[in-house]
């Protein structure tokens, strides 16, 4: 490399680029994170208030109306028995995927760039699953009896039907919610202890942190236990993650419907979930970086650059699986499937099919190949947003549009969304609201992980060259 600059400048350049090479005293970093939690402007409270009102109206009031009047206020009808409710369920589970993917897989493979944003991603898992839960319960005709789907011992010995993919789904999502919440909580403990020690006595926050930190003091034994537990969880949660979205896909793939009965749906759904989830992570990071104090130190263009590469690869994989799903169905030559494929592209909702391909494939490929572009937060935010729009379109095509075509042409009818549009907006508002609340209550940056990474990295001189060295801590 013909780098003629003096090496001190090269060193400065490296420090500026990489968080891991730009260490900061631990006390100061802790203060920065605490400050980011405590700095709230009037704009924060304005958005918070508006979202609260939206959640109260669109989610809870409208849901109440639907419970009292019946599902008739929604748009679901004879062929499209499942509408936007199921679209949103699959969408939110997809969003929740990337949290664990980024955190667990990158932790297992010791990818150093993960350190500052694992928590931001893990929070998405838990909050996304909550919205998925809302969406699936809302779609039930008699939600007040939903506990019947749980295997609760009762005097009549009535059990849920374990032959039903919906029962598998419920178990898989519950497992994922519990394990991902524990996986979120474990690396949070040292940071909660940090926050506890920096909160004045007599405040409710002190009580909050003291209870949640479980008396963590940072002894050698506590760290060993934490590392062991994290190691087990990071490995164990990966198969759980894969199982969840394949089982969600089985809700469709196990059915006898044209367009649904596809053996590739399992991996296709997993890669689709990662696609939308990565887009969501990048959106969250761009917003956090742009709106919260001190975050420009922690979240840097290098992180967008690294996630952008992952997004590009996932977009290519998604395109391959889409093609695979399409070609297998088309090649099969079943007349109803052919009718359905034609309906996807040339039906009245054909714009959605092309929009899906543009948002999921064309735009990511056109932008993410360029290192400079994918390092630009606002640009990659837009890409992430469009990927999420495209993935929502994909689920909309799979659920209500595919349901329009069945083997009884007499019943074909278009689906027109009703109250479920409000309910979907309500879940989105609730997701953002939970995230905003969390950003002011718990440290969004895993401080101890960043500090650990910075301790492990060092710049050394090898002759005249400055070399980055990493020592293994774990």
């Amino acid at each position, binding site marked *: 490399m013909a780098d003629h600059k003096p090496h001190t400048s090269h060193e400065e350049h490296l420090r500026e680029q990489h968080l891991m090479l730009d260490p900061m005293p631990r006390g100061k970093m802790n203060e920065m994170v605490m400050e980011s939690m405590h700095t709230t402007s009037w704009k924060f409270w304005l958005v918070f208030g508006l979202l609260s009102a939206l959640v109260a109206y669109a989610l809870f009031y409208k849901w109440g109306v639907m419970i009292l009047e019946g*599902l008739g206020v929604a748009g679901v009808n004879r062929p499209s028995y499942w509408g936007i409710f199921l679209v949103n369920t699959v969408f939110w589970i997809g969003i929740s995927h990337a949290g664990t993917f980024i955190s667990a897989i990158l932790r297992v493979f010791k990818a150093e760039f993960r350190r500052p944003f694992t928590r931001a991603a893990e929070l998405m898992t838990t909050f996304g699953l909550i919205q998925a839960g809302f969406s699936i319960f809302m779609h039930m005709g008699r939600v007040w009896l939903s506990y019947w789907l749980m295997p609760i011992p009762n005097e009549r010995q009535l059990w*849920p039907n374990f032959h*039903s993919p919906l029962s598998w789904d419920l178990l898989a999502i519950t497992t994922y919610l519990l394990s991902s919440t524990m996986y979120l909580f474990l690396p949070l403990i040292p940071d909660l202890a940090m926050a506890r020690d920096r909160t004045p006595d007599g405040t409710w926050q002190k009580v909050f942190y003291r209870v949640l930190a479980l008396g963590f003091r940072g002894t050698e034994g506590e760290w060993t236990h934490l590392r062991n537990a994290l190691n087990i969880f990071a490995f164990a949660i990966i198969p759980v993650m894969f199982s969840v979205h394949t089982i969600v896909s089985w809700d469709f793939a196990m059915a006898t419907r044209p367009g649904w009965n596809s053996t590739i749906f399992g991996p296709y759904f997993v890669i689709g979930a990662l696609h939308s989830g990565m887009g969501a992570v990048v959106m969250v990071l761009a917003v956090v970086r742009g709106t919260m104090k001190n975050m420009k130190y922690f979240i840097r263009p290098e992180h967008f650059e690294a996630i952008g590469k992952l997004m590009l690869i996932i977009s290519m994989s998604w395109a391959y699986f889409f093609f695979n799903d399409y070609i297998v169905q088309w090649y099969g030559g079943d007349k109803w499937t052919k009718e359905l494929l034609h309906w996807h592209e040339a039906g009245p909702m054909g714009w959605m099919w092309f929009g899906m391909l543009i948002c999921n494939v064309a735009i990511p490929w056109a932008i993410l190949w360029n290192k400079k572009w994918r390092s630009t937060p606002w640009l990659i935010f837009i890409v992430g947003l469009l990927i999420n729009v495209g993935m929502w379109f994909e689920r909309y095509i799979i659920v209500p549009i595919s349901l329009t075509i069945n083997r009884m042409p007499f019943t074909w*009818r278009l689906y027109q969304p009703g109250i479920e549009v409000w309910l979907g907006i309500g879940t989105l508002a609730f997701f953002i609201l939970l995230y905003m609340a969390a950003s002011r209550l718990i440290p969004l940056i895993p401080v101890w992980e960043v500090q650990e990474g910075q301790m492990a990295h060092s710049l050394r001189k090898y002759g005249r060259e400055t070399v980055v060295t990493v020592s293994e801590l774990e």
Partner: protein
Amino acid sequence: MTVDLNKLHAVGAIAEEAEGKWGMVIDMDLCTGCQACVAACAMENNIPYVEEVDAGYGRSMHWIRTERFWEGEYPEVKMSAYQPMLCQQCGKAPCEPVCPAFATVHSQAEQINLQVYNRCVGTRYCANNCPYQVRSFNWRDYQDSRVRPEITILANQFNPDVTVRRRGVMEKCTFCIQRIHKAQDKAKSEGREVEDGEFTTACAQACPANAITFGRIDHPESLVAQLARSPRAAHHLEELGTLPRVTYLKEG
């Protein structure tokens, strides 16, 4: 000695499933599309009256419907036969395994596919998975006269033998199971078997053209079994392996 293969879950069970117990034959040559079966079924089974807007949006709740098809564009239209479509009472029903609450069950005694209304939680998975699209969902409280005062008069003529369903519940054709039970109880009290033609379903009873025949499909000498052996006999979507118990007689 005869062994009940169903109890052993043996290969023979498939043969039994294919045969079934109660069956129906619909002669499409005789059907005039008059919809008397639709009206009779609604009266017999307390099927909700869905108003115009909902019905126009694909939410009408009839357990039997008369499908009509045509070829060509107006005015060169050629009508093909009417096709009454109701639950095919599949021997291997796709709706049954997908219900998470066991609300869609197979009656072992009658070999009929039944919906347990008070167990249904309304996931609507069964209706999605029904290739015949013959299940209907209570989108609203259509039967509650407190919600809809205009149905108070209709409520006076509910059939007392059949449940009134509330919102959020799936329902479907039962082959008039209340009539089956009534006939069986009567025969039992008189110490005999139910005779062929002793009773029939509401749709078959109402059909002015006698296009619908109902009876024991497993008794070779019964009228319905004889008709089902006709060379015109066909089953809907047989390729899916659902083992439907309703036989259609094609145009001859």
